[in-house]
Structures are given as structure tokens and as C-alpha cells.
């Protein structure tokens, strides 16, 4: 395999990146498109291996496309887990406690305005 920067990252972490691409796309993607979409610089064989592993776990499905296979994220039984999870978390008025802290939360209108200003001012 080529000795690229991405190759040195743990394969487990790369699996998450590949899955993220397929979920974000929301439509089937070929292996080449996945490879182009992830920020890490990966060999073609690595991407194929990662996709194969995700298929084996049932998290990704594949079907024949125009050239080779196209891959897509597999939805768990119509979002059943998601609905159950949110029902559990929403009990107690949306208070998630400290341990399950969200990535981001607590944005009031003033925060929102300030955030837009910061991202526009420094985001370029």
C-alpha cells in the first residue's frame, strides 16, 4: 500500500470517516467518489477494504452501478433506534445531564448573531 499520510491513522478511525461520507451524501456513491470525498489521502485499495468491512457489518449496502459497485449507508429499521434514543433523552425536559453533553448546545438568539459574526469575520 502507498505510504500516504492517511494510511498511518488507525483503520478504525478511517471507517468512521468513510461512513460519515456515505451518510452525508444521502445517495449511493462509488468507491472512487468516496475516496475523493474524505479529507485523508488514502490508497484506492484501502478505501475498498474499508467499504468491504462496513458492508460486512451491515452498516453499508452496495449494488451494481454503471461502473462497478455503488455504496450507500444502511438505515436501521426506519430510524427505530433514533426514535427510541430521543424518547429516552427527551424525558426530563431535554436536560441531558453533564456526562452525555452534546457537541454543541445552548444557543440563544444573541449567541446565534455573535456566532454568525465570528464565522463570517474569521471564517475565510
Amino acid at each position, binding site marked *: 500500500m502507498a505510504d500516504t499520510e492517511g494510511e498511518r491513522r488507525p483503520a478504525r478511525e478511517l471507517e*468512521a*470517516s468513510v461512513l*460519515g461520507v456515505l451518510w452525508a451524501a444521502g445517495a449511493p456513491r462509488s468507491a472512487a467518489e468516496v475516496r475523493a470525498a474524505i479529507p485523508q489521502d488514502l490508497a484506492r485499495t484501502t478505501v475498498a477494504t474499508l467499504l468491504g468491512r462496513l458492508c460486512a457489518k451491515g452498516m453499508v449496502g452496495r449494488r451494481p452501478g454503471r461502473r462497478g459497485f455503488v455504496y450507500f449507508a444502511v438505515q436501521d429499521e426506519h430510524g427505530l433506534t433514533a426514535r427510541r434514543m430521543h424518547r429516552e433523552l427527551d424525558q426530563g425536559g431535554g436536560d441531558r445531564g453533564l*456526562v452525555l453533553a452534546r457537541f*454543541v448546545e445552548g*444557543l*440563544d438568539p444573541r449567541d446565534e448573531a455573535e*456566532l454568525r459574526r465570528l464565522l463570517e469575520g474569521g471564517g475565510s
Partner: protein
Amino acid sequence: MIVLLVVPLLLPWALPPLARRTAERVRPDVALCAITGAAATLALGVVACLGVLLLPLVLRLPLLAQLAHLLHPLRVGPAFLTSAASCLAAGALGVAVAAGVRGAATEVARLRAVRRCLAGLPHAGGMCVLDDDRPDAFALPAGLRSRRRIVVTAGMLRALDAREREALLGHERAHLASRHHLFLAVAQLAGWCHPALAAVVAHASFAAERAADEAAARVCGDRRLTARAVGRAALAVAAHRAGPTPPLFAAKGTTGPVPARVRALLAQAPARRIAPALLAMTLLCAAAGASSLAGALWVHHGIEIAQGERPAG
């Protein structure tokens, strides 16, 4: 002399402003340790002092006085003052224990429920994706029989671009790798012991988020990108919420934690390890420790007199 035992009950009020300055200025991983450590120390002081203050009341019961081999009634100050302090301490201790038990039970139940939901779900490199349009992401620490997981909704993955997703994953991985949940649990426990320490919990939480942000920025090698990921995720969450957002805090002069995190990421990397606030926090803990120790020794002296092992006077 009873003042010695009251001082540690008042000292925690000095911690919230110090914790705020520490969380803002000191390197976030150091700040998280310092704030959690100070809160835990002060909470221990509070509980110890309440326990010692309880003694005069408890040792008035004939059975317990007999068990403690008291020959005379325990006298550690003016009788009226001692009983009043004892009763107040009993009440405060009861409230703290009730809050702790209830809060801990809620937290454990919530963790269990989430783990139950995820039990059968496959994962990719520790990441579970929920098929849900609501943008959300959090790190679930390992349990006794379950592995740690990063939980992300499809809505969150769609809200960010590929490099921002790496920043998000880096942030959540940092939470899990540095075991931030343990620090937060300690801070929360301390918060249940004293109302002033409850105000410190938010600062500990902010320090943990900042520490994870800095770790994510190191992994991505781009602070600006990490700032954008945090900001765009927050805006996506806000946009998805139905209706006008209820103001979480009544309009104050300052903005909430998310803009502060973005501002900090857009600025230079924090380098200062030692700040006056850290020293002040250490002094505060030392004062609380010394005062509760002196108070406890003094009550111990009183007990020895009551046991007839020392002459009164």
C-alpha cells in the same frame, strides 16, 4: 471557635469567579483538572464540617453518648449556638444527600437507557450513526459491559463538510480518550454538596469542551476549521429547532459557551499554564482544609473533656 467550622462552609462562594477566570485563561486541560480538584476539595471540607457540627447534636442522645464513653455532656461552646448550628448542619447534610442520591440515580438511569438503545447497533470505528434529521452528537463513556461510543445523527453528518466532520470526531474522541466524564461526574457530585459549587459545574463543563476542541484542532492541524465545525454545528442545531428558541438564560450582557469556544479557537492557542486564579484556588482549598481541621481538633478536644480524659478548662 465554632467559626472555624463555619468558614469552610462559606469559602466555596469564592470559587465560581475563580473557576470562571481559570476556564477562560488557563490551558483547558489544566483548567479542568484544577477546577474539578478545587471543587472536590471544597466539597469534602463542607461535608466534613457538617459532619463535625452534627456531633454535639448526635452525642446528646443517651445511647450514642454511652457508646462514645462520654461521662459528661459535650460542651464545645454556648449551648444555644451549638444546638442551632447542629440542627442547621443536619438539615444541610440531609438536603445534600437527597440531591446527590436523586441526581446520581437520574444520571445513571439516563446512561443505561442510552446504552440499551445502542446495544444492538453496529459501529464503525466506535461511531454509531442514528438515522435522524435532528443534528446531534455526543460521546457515550464505556460502561461495565459496554464499550465507549461516539453517537452522531445523520442530520449532524449532513450539516458539516468532510473536514469539519473530522473535527467533530476528533472532539468526541478526545472526550472519551481523556475521560472527561469522570471529571464532570466529580464536579457534579461536588455541586450537589453546596449551592456555590453547583455554580462551578458549568465552568468545569466549559473547560472540558474547550479541552476537546483544542485536541480536535491538534488532530486536524487547523484551529480555524475546528472553530467553523463547532459554529456551524451549533447553527444547524439552532436552525432545526422548531419555533423561537426559549432563552436559556435571561438576557445577560454576555453570550453563551458556544461563541466563547469559537472565539477561543479563532484566537491563538492558549499557552499559559499558571494563572493567579490557579494559585488563588489552591490557597482557597488550603484555607478550607486548615479551618476544618482546626475545627475538628477543637471538637475532638471537647469530646476528650467529656470523656473525662482531660480536665475541663
